[in-house]
């Protein structure tokens, strides 16, 4: 019996669950315009996972990367949820990401 998949599935569920938390906090603190950087970090982690010799470490880094890519697509909807009062809205000015004007011209993706 190979327990690797079952255990990895449980770990993935935990990492995805943590994703819900950081999306809420990240949007509150930084705003949704940071989404390309979060997506890029997720993609970079997936690439980095190729270089780990440990299967467990490679798989967990891959899952973490995928959850960052997914989370980056949730940031825009989270911003709308906060504006609708479903989550705490941060009225303070948020730090602008580099190249913010270019980012504003790109339609933020969501699943």
């Amino acid at each position, binding site marked *: 019996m190979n327990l690797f998949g079952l255990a990895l*599935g449980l770990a993935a569920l935990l990492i995805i669950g943590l994703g819900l938390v950081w999306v809420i906090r990240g949007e509150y603190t930084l705003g949704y315009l940071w989404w390309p950087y979060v997506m890029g970090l997720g993609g970079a982690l997936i690439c980095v996972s190729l270089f780990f010799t440990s299967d467990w470490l490679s*798989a967990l880094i891959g899952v973490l990367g995928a959850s960052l890519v997914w989370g980056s697509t949730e940031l825009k909807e989270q911003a709308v949820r906060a*504006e609708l009062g479903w989550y705490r809205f941060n009225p303070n000015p948020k730090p602008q990401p580099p190249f913010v004007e270019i980012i504003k011209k790109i339609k933020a993706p969501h699943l």
Partner: protein
Amino acid sequence: MTLNGIGVVAALATFLGVWVGHVAVRKVEYRAPDLRAPMLVALIIGLALEVVALSSTSLYLSGACGILGMTAWFDAAEFRRQFKRVKKGHAPANPNNPRHAPLLTEGKATTIDLLKREPMGQVITYKEQAA
């Protein structure tokens, strides 16, 4: 140097599982008159995938099926949570769905997808947005 592909496989399984589950739960909950059947289907799919994960000697297949199976089980529970969102007006209700129609008649739900817009940077009430 040999590259280890398990991370990429795990990443693809995670992203696909979340994406397909996210879209399927919303679409099925919108249309299904009874949630028990889709919940059962998701549970069976999850179980089948976990059995494959446990019995496979391939690390890649075991990892991918393990992740996809867990997301299917998670989606089984998501059907009820999605219905709760509809009840609160946080997700659009379907006037042709017998589970949703009474909620719309009582004014508890909405047919509008309130999340389908760009952020405006300010608090906006449901009535303001609906207008």
